[in-house]
């Protein structure tokens, strides 16, 4: 029963996803404009990899459940070999 989120929260989520995947899932930080990357293949692939790792629904989308896990405090070591 989640409610529509405000646009700026969506923007924050995109950045959260970006940073998380760069830090823990070896997403290459090529400095491209974040907005355009939101739908890029590599982000979707890495997001799926993270969702599979945590046993979440593998949607490739930053759904509420995925964002909740991303915001949990954790160990700084990546989940995948770099």
């Amino acid at each position, binding site marked *: 029963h989640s409610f529509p989120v405000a646009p700026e929260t969506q923007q924050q989520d995109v950045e959260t996803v970006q940073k998380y995947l760069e830090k823990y899932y070896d997403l290459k930080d090529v400095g491209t404009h974040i907005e355009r990357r939101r739908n890029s293949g590599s982000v979707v692939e890495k997001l799926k990899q993270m969702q599979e790792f945590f046993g979440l629904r593998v949607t490739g989308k930053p759904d509420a459940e995925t964002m909740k896990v991303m915001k949990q*405090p954790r160990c700084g070591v990546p989940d995948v070999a770099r």
Partner: protein
Amino acid sequence: FVLTQGNPRWEKTDLTYRIENYTPDLSEAEVDHAIEKAFQLWSNVTPLTFTKLPAGQADIMISFVRGDHHDNSPFDGSGGNLAHAFQPGPGIGGDAHFDEDERWTNNYRDYNLYRVAAHELGHSLGLSHSTDIGALMYPNYIFSGDVQLAQDDINGIQTIYGPSKNPTQPTGSQTPEVCDSKLTFDAITTIRGELMFFKDRFYMRANSVYPEVELNFISVFWPSLPSGIEAAYELAERDEIRFFKGSKYWAVLGQDVLRGYPKDIHSSFGFPRTVKHIDAAVSEEDTGKTYFFVANKYWRYDEYKRSMDAGYPKMIAHDFPGIGHKVDAVFKKDGFFYFFHGTRQYKFDAKTKRILSLQKANSWFNC
């Protein structure tokens, strides 16, 4: 479990460590104790020994640092990254860093140093992150009150270093697998239209919207509840769930444990002193009657009168023929009782006193 890429390991078993500096959040003795306990978790199940050095270069150097501390992996202030450690090797290899921008504790408040150190030392010894949510090597901070190696952690570290020579080495807790045909339950209850199954430290939750079964720690919802819940039932009229363990029980409303709990089952429900714990319980919303199952007998409690009905206990076998003499868990759904004992689940019609079906205990998980 996952081994670090390239399988780095220490080539010797007698390792040393040194605590370079201390967090002001805890006394030095508390930090020493937390770190020592964390090392013991791993030395208990391997041939490894860890000796604390007061000065000089040790194999595993431990420090509390903040922000950019010049190891190419800056910390990020409060929350987010809590700590990190380096794989076995010379120099920075094996070292563990804790983010000083966090608050380090020795209790259930964020963040328990013992719990985080136990995880980081797994990295220091060559383990990477596990996908097993019950493992210490799972990447997210989860503190369920006690810190113990899961069997997954033990399997991982013994793959690298072999077992301990000590014959009484501990075995680890096993994270339940929802489609394991041998899965049994400690307790089951309805919760606002859903079903929640309890096993050791974990709950499993099945609902019609999501096909996958959610498995997580009981402490995620109810941090102050113990693990190993023995019975649970929903008092739907008051939107309460009651959890039982030993002679104590807790009442929760959503995620809040109600004030004044735990209470004693003898003084609250009138059980005789001979009853030490409850095996299973279920409440009927329409009659206000709650059934408590203990060994081969059952009691019936009137939630309106708040007293046990006369004439109890009675023999389970007499009024619920066919379900056996002991019940692990029970709930009621759509007018039918579902009794669980071991891996068996009986659908029972109380009106005709007949068993309608016999299924696997985990039949609700669509395996």
